[in-house]
């Protein structure tokens, strides 16, 4: 059941001298949505980007502690980071499709990992688009440039792209904050659909959204994990006054 469970143990991170995350310990369960919420600058994105080691690219980034994925520490020195990132997909805040055709956006990842068979690639394109609820809208224009799609479609394409390499885990960094309410609603519905098959970690500073779609929630404030529990419990009875202040809109 917990084959892909992600566990974060005593995580501390720094950008240069700045201590961003402080002693974070939490875990993310399979086939559920965990929301990481908190005000801007609290370290939500840093925590998310530590899970696929995207922070490694930033000069001056330092990390102590461990993150276990399927039982092994992803910060092991001999860990293959490319293999890791293939298995932990990511969707970004702003839609960022590659400047290629829709089809090429979806075959890019599989090709990188050695899939050359055209029929197989065709199948992946259709599968990923169907899972991202975009197939019906774009099936006739797979070869047109991805950037011609609307913002919401682009973001769903980015979700499809992340799914194209078949990762069990999906990281989402405020995936709807740059979209209009209708597109945002579609993507929220999609997240709820996707959790049947994927472990989803969703960063958001929108409390209502966190309550709508997540099963667990983590509240981060100034780099500390203030509260971490079932979303329902936090929504009804926050334990910490800072959590209460945040969900009632007094900080944020």
């Amino acid at each position: 059941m917990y084959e892909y469970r992600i566990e974060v143990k005593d995580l501390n991170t720094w950008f240069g001298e700045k201590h961003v995350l402080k002693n974070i310990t939490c875990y993310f369960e399979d086939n559920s949505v965990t929301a990481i919420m908190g005000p801007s600058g609290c370290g939500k994105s840093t925590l998310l980007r530590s899970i696929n080691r995207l922070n490694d690219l930033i000069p001056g980034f330092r990390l102590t502690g461990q993150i276990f994925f399927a039982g092994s520490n992803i910060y092991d020195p001999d860990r293959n980071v490319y293999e890791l990132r293939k298995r932990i997909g990511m969707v970004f805040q702003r839609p960022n499709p590659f400047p290629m055709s829709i089809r090429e956006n979806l075959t890019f990842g599989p090709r990188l990992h050695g899939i050359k068979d055209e029929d197989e690639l065709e199948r992946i394109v259709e599968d990923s688009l169907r899972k991202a609820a975009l197939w019906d809208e774009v099936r006739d224009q797979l070869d047109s440039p991805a950037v011609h799609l609307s913002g919401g479609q682009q973001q769903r394409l980015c979700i499809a792209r992340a799914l194209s390499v078949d990762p069990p885990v999906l990281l989402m960094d405020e995936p709807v904050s740059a979209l209009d309410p209708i597109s945002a609603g579609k993507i929220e519905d999609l997240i709820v659909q996707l959790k049947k098959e994927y472990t989803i970690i969703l960063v958001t500073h929108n409390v209502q959204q966190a309550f709508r779609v997540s099963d667990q929630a983590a509240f981060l404030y100034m780099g500390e994990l203030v509260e971490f529990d079932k979303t329902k419990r936090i929504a009804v009875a926050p334990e910490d006054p800072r959590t209460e202040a945040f969900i009632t809109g007094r900080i944020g």
Partner: protein
Amino acid sequence: MNRTDDEREREGTQAGRLWTVLSEGGTRLVALGGRARRLTRREVKDIVFKLLVALMVLIVVTPFFLLLARLLSVGLQDLVGSGPGQGWELIATLPGAALRGGVLNAIVGTTVLVLVATAVGVPLSVMGAVYINEYSRPGRVRTAIEFGADVLAGIPSIVFGAFGFTFLVAYLGLGLGALTGGLTLAFMMIPTVMRTTQEALKQVPSSLREASLALGATKWATTWRVTVRAALPGIVTGILLAVGRVMGETAPLIFTTGNNLGLPTGLVGPESWVASLPFTIWSYIMDPRPYLQVRAHSAALVLLMMVLIVDILANYASRRLTRRIV
């Protein structure tokens, strides 16, 4: 009369009188358009500045048209005529005795030189730009390389010619010829192409690189399949503009290519000596024989047309690429 106090105040002074004249003129202009009302001061200011910038543009473009007019008035007879060395013969035959023959040697020479320069200069500059922008950390080294490239781009072309001669011809012993001339042009291309490529790479949002890395791509795959690909229209435009520029360079070729009334048969050694359009124009215009002076003008027209073709290609290529990927 709806003048402001400010305007009345100006009336006594020189500027004020000029002002009155201008605004009266403006009023009449508007009256001609059927709307008989006095222009406000801001509207007049607007018109005056519009005329001013239009005049500036006129001054800027006039030399080009004067030059074109001059070249056409002297050289066009060679391009469209049907005498010896004229018309088709001008661009399709080698120079012969007296009036006979055209400038094919120079056309081929310029083409060969530019091909050598592009083949050597473009990979070096693009790789260099990729290294600076994608691999090197921002800091002193990067600043130093960028500064170096900017200085190189500003060095007069005759200095590149002198460098080509002392380094390639004398020190490396390559001798005069197509390779030496092409390499000298490549030196001239490198700073421009490197900087335009770097600018194009800078325009690629970092979120695209992150998206690729997050799919498990290596840095290498990300750089070539995503970043460079996204920057391609800008890179191609930069390359073709640099090509158009070095095509017309004379100074770097004077000491490095030799000359040739026929076609080169090699890349190094005496058989590789080449003519080029700029060099040919220069030597013909220095010659007292009148038919050679005419030939210089028609050769200049040929060169202009070649540069124009490269420019059109540049436009077409970057538009095609942009349409395909954006």
